[in-house]
């Protein structure tokens, strides 16, 4: 009988292969060693990337998932290996990124005894996973992993964690993988209600100043085509959230810009002037709404959303359409009357011109000596491929890169939106690049954030992933410094950094690098970087005390967006 039996660790790997996992980001250790031993036998069927820290592994899995639309897979040992995943789990949950994380655990008989590297990762990760489970015997492994993949990728995607005790990995069991297609407590198929569509269509048809806000739901729902068709027919101006960027090409005639604290002037101002607001796959984050008490009070709000818990969570809507926006948008497009809104659209363009004169000109064609972050991104646009992926960290550079990057394709925006995780960019860029070496992946990062996960340069070296890293160095934790300048009387409390010679670090990792501090060298440096075959590290020394505008200060209304 034993011939038919395989080790639990082999079951883990074979189930991952059955679930079409192509790549694992991970880090070995005692309690997960049997799985690593099994990986040795299957290296021709499934790749593994050894990061330099478990946080790097999970952010890489996130980057991979965001670009590929597939489930990111992450492997870590028990104890510190598992706790190092927590930030990434929280990040993936709030940004709806599908992940399956597998952690090793001490043998079942040692559970609860404070054994070496034992930690209650199931308890710890409960608030930051969509679902989690501890597997204590070999028979449960394949069903648990199959269920985990189903949960991670279906409905509103999210991270799932499976904690597998060491005895389950080393015991022998039969391998009978059955894919999970659903179960009774978890309904994933939501039929869009035709009456909801009819009512939404009537509201939209009656509108004089309708306005669409779109978020990552369009991308996650694979609804880009349906969304574009809806806009083409209705002529409604549309603005993007941070994570929605890329869902609609920015050269689309209805595209009017970006929402929120550091978004564009027109989209924020006119939120409080539209008469019907159509929110598609977005969740009215506080960074989008500003003061909710003064948010779009004049408008009738229609919310197209998959997750019932998001409806009326922060902003009360007048009408909701529950379901995947791929379905609801298609039905809605059929139900609405074709229209155009030239006068209303012109209002957006007027404010856009105002923003151009007051902010954009300074940012992309500066007259100051110091380089601006905006002109760097503007130059990247001149040379980048249409499907280049932009990966950013968190802070000023993130907002500037988002503002100026020319998004043309879906799944080209990878950033830590909801959680705001510094240190995200470098490993996420590695993960995004591992999906496809032929695609341009541009990682824009600040001098603060890069030092939180700088060790992943080692992983880039080892994998030869051709990531193009642009370090925008202002020797400050820039966004915090900006707030200190604006709201704390310029008391720069612990925001200035004494930095190392970054290019030497990159060189030590064998990554070609260059440092630019003069405007005349910028264009050529960016071109050199983008055509270079292999990873590249470009440090750009930028103006120390530049600020990001427009800005809606905390507690302000969207119409109080400031241009300076």
């Amino acid at each position, binding site marked *: 009988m034993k011939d038919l039996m395989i080790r639990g660790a082999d079951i883990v790997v074979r189930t991952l292969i059955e679930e079409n996992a192509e790549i694992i980001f991970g880090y070995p250790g005692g309690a997960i060693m049997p799985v690593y031993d099994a990986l040795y036998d299957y290296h021709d069927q499934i790749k593994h990337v050894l990061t330099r820290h478990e946080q790097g592994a999970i952010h890489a899995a996130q980057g991979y998932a965001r670009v590929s639309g597939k489930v990111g897979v992450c492997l870590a040992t028990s104890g510190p290996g598992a706790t190092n995943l927590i930030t990434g789990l929280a990040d993936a949950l709030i940004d709806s990124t599908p992940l399956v994380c597998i952690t090793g655990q001490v043998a079942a008989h040692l559970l609860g005894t404070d054994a070496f590297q034992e930690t209650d990762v*199931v*308890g710890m990760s*409960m*608030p930051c996973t*969509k*679902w*989690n489970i*501890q597997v204590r015997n070999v028979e449960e492994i394949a069903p648990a992993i199959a269920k985990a993949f189903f*949960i991670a990728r279906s409905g509103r995607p999210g991270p799932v964690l499976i904690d597998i005790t060491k005895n389950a990995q080393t015991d022998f069991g039969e391998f009978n993988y059955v894919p999970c297609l659903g179960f*009774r*407590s*978890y309904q994933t198929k939501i039929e869009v209600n035709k009456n909801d569509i009819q009512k939404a269509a009537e509201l939209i048809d009656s509108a004089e100043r309708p306005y669409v806000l779109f978020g990552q739901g369009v991308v996650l729902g694979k609804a880009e085509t349906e969304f574009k068709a809806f806009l083409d027919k209705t002529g409604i101006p549309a603005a993007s959230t941070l994570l929605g960027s890329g869902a609609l090409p920015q050269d689309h005639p209805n595209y009017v810009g970006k929402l929120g604290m550091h978004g564009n002037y027109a989209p924020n101002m006119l939120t409080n002037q539209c008469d019907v607001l159509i929110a598609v796959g977005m969740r009215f984050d506080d960074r989008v709404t500003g003061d909710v008490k003064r948010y779009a009070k004049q408008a009738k709000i229609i919310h197209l959303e998959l*997750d*019932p*818990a998001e409806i*009326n*969570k922060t902003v009360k809507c007048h009408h909701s359409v529950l379901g995947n926006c791929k379905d609801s948008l298609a039905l809605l497009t059929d139900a609405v009357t074709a229209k155009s809104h030239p006068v209303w659209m012109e209002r957006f363009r007027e404010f856009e011109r105002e923003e151009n004169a007051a902010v954009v000109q300074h940012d992309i064609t500066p007259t100051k000596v110091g380089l601006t972050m905006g002109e760097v991104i503007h130059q990247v646009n001149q040379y980048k491929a249409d499907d280049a992926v932009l990966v950013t960290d968190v802070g000023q550079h993130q907002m500037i890169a988002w503002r100026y990057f020319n998004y043309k394709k879906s799944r080209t925006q990878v950033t830590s939106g909801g959680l705001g995780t510094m240190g995200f960019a470098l490993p996420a860029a590695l993960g995004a690049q591992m999906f496809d070496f032929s695609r341009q992946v541009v990682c824009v990062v600040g001098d603060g954030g890069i030092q939180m996960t700088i060790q992943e340069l080692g992983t880039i070296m080892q994998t030869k992933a051709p990531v193009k890293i642009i370090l925008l160095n202002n020797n400050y934790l820039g966004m915090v410094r900006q707030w200190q300048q604006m709201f704390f009387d310029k008391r720069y409390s612990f925001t200035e950094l004494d930095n190392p010679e970054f290019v030497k670090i990159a060189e030590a990792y064998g990554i070609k690098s260059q440092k630019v501090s003069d405007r005349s060298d910028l264009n050529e440096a960016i071109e050199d970087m983008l055509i270079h075959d292999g990873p590249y590290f470009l440090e750009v020394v930028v103006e120390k005390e530049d600020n990001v505008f427009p800005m809606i200060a905390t507690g302000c209304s969207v119409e109080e967006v400031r241009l300076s």
Partner: protein
Amino acid sequence: MKRYTIFVITENFIGILNRITIIFTRRGINIDALTASESRIEGIHRITIEVTASEDTVIQLVNQIEKIIDVIKAFYHEDEGVVYQEIALYKIPVSKLDGGLEKIIRQHNAKIIAAEPEFVVLELSGHKEQTQELLEILKGYGLLEFARSGRVAVAKRMHTIDSYVK
């Protein structure tokens, strides 16, 4: 702020109670009482949570609870929408058992459910106000120990959980 009863119909999955309670913890909301038991359908558990909050908050709580993968259904009722009962046990020293106490037991419809050489245990089922009233009286009779359950409740609405369990 009002008192609400939240019903959760759930799979019997390890950790499910934890997943539910952290939804309250995160918002700084206190659970007044909680009971969990197997429902009349095998493998399906029923959790009853009593909470004092605004209706808006309760709606958010219920939405978040329903989002938990192993939860089948969650809903809420005001006190008027449910029939509920709590059970209380009172441990009294035998030495205090006299005619006065006997009268009190009769008046409150309490029962003596255990009698030991040194103490007796009284039981009273009812709403919290009733069990509390008896508690206050028995404090004068050398009450040794007191325990009260959370609320068990059924909805007045005519529907069954079978419709959610397919």
